[in-house]
């Protein structure tokens, strides 16, 4: 009897903890959406900010976010996919692969503010790119590289060996096999990695703040400074300029994150079925 009571208490407590966790998630998302969505209007999405963002919209900030994110995935995707192909298809067991793998893990663990410091010292100052879309894009591409590699490699692993053997037996070279047989089989894995990378790039703040700068002008060239939504949210929140605009920006970020997570789940769910 005593044992039974203890057991009930134990599982009750665990259930409670799990419920609180779910509650916190709902509270955070709900709180920001409820306060933010009423402040998102067409004007907010399409207008330029006035008075440092206190009035007006965030159009240049949305464009800046897309611009920086696009640059980062254009740089990171080919490199990440190629790296994953190397790990899964070409690498032979040995020291070299262990070293490369170790450093890929190290790269994945480096905090964003260190990437920011590096991006500032290397791209902004040393290479003279200044606070710009390209400095931020390059810095972010380094940050999302490990995610891309991991996700692509996972899905390369699921391609049956017999596919490769069949292709090689038909006289295809190794590269032809990779390009025409193996890679097409794991499109969804690459896509999942890409979407997660985009999510990380959009939400990143510290690294972007130190490399892109904070200009509120519409960026044209990749050498222009701009501001991303995450940096804009930080500026609004820390300076307390306007509650409405802050909640609206935060809600927009949450909505994007929700869309990205749903997409990633949907695609990896499809992958699991395949």
């Amino acid at each position, binding site marked *: 009897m005593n*044992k*039974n009571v203890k*057991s009930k208490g*134990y599982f009750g407590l*665990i259930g409670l*903890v*799990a419920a*609180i*966790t*779910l509650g916190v*998630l709902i509270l955070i998302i709900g*709180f*920001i959406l409820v306060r933010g969505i009423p402040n998102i209007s067409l004007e907010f999405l399409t207008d330029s900010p006035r008075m440092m963002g206190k009035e007006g919209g965030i159009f240049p900030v949305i464009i800046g976010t897309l611009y920086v994110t696009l640059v980062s995935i254009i740089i990171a995707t080919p*490199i990440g996919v*190629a*790296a994953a192909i*190397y790990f899964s298809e*070409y690498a032979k067991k040995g020291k070299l692969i262990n*070293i*490369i793998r*170790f*450093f*890929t*893990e*190290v790269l994945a*663990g*480096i*905090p964003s503010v*260190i*990437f*920011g*410091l*590096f991006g*500032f*010292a290397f791209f902004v100052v040393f290479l003279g790119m200044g606070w710009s879309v390209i400095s931020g894009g390059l810095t972010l591409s*380094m940050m999302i*590289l*490990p995610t891309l*590699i991991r996700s692509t490699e996972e899905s390369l692993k699921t391609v049956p060996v017999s596919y490769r053997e069949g292709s090689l037996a038909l006289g295809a*070279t*190794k*590269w032809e096999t990779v390009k025409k047989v193996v890679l097409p089989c794991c499109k969804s894995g690459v896509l999942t990695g890409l979407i997660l990378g985009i999510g990380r790039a959009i*939400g*990143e*703040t*510290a690294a972007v*703040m*130190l490399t892109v700068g904070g200009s509120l002008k519409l960026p044209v060239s990749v050498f222009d400074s701009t501001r991303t939504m*995450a940096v804009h*949210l*930080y500026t609004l*929140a820390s300076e307390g300029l306007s509650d409405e605009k*802050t909640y609206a920006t*935060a809600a927009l*970020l*949450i909505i994007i*994150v*929700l869309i990205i*997570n749903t997409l990633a*789940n949907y695609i990896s769910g499809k992958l699991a079925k395949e």
Partner: protein
Amino acid sequence: MKTREKAIEKIILICAAVSTLAVALITIFIFSSGFPVLKSYGVFNFIFGENWRPTGGQYGILPLIAGTLGVTLGALIIGIPTGLGCAVFLAEMLKKRSARLFKAAIELLAGIPSVVYGFFGLAVIVPVIREYILPLVQKINPDASSSGFSVLAGAIILAIMILPTIVSISENSISAVPREFREASLALGADKRETITKVILPAAKSGIFSSIILAMGRAIGETMAVLLITGNMAQIPGSPLDSAATLTGTIAMEMSYATPEHQSALFAIGIILFVIIVILNSIAQAIMRKFGGMTA
């Protein structure tokens, strides 16, 4: 044909080496930029100096280390039991379909940008501490005061942010415990609770341990959330209700207006952070490799 294949293999190898090159470049640039201050100020004075006053040329980061340690410890105290509870709930108590939903919720928690967490902390947790928790504390200690911007606020937000790391890795290693362990324990007359606490959790301990170390690394490295809610006062916090500044927050906040020497000091903080994180992550990796647990 053959030379083409060879060339392609070379190109792919170079792409694989990019991350190694990136780590090398990061190391070189952070260390060379931070070195001047470490050299002129002295490593010992830098780490154990009690005053961080960049305008007065004083670069002691002990208050920042204390701030980072404070929020990290607080986050672990709240986050470890919660995360383990969620992992057990997920692995042992839920059916497959509801487990997938719960997992998606935890992943969503990981996807929310840190600046949004910071803003939530600023809008909700800081006022709650100031208006509800402080009066409670004042009943015991009438001298207590707090603006709400505090170590406690940082610890609560960080605890939420490190949950996904603890839950997903712990859950993986709990699920990896062989079925025979459970069956043997149940056959010996243990009930489900005893099986979980005395057989499964001990068997999964290497995965759980490394999840905690990785979570600690995340908490130490987190910047924006903490920056918005800890108050950024470079002082050694005496209580969880005191304001504090962290290593990461100080870098992010002061970089934009720093003089060259001050900048070098911020890079030197970067060196310390970098070393701490690489050590923590290597330990976690080594544990997982040695005990064959699931990788992150």
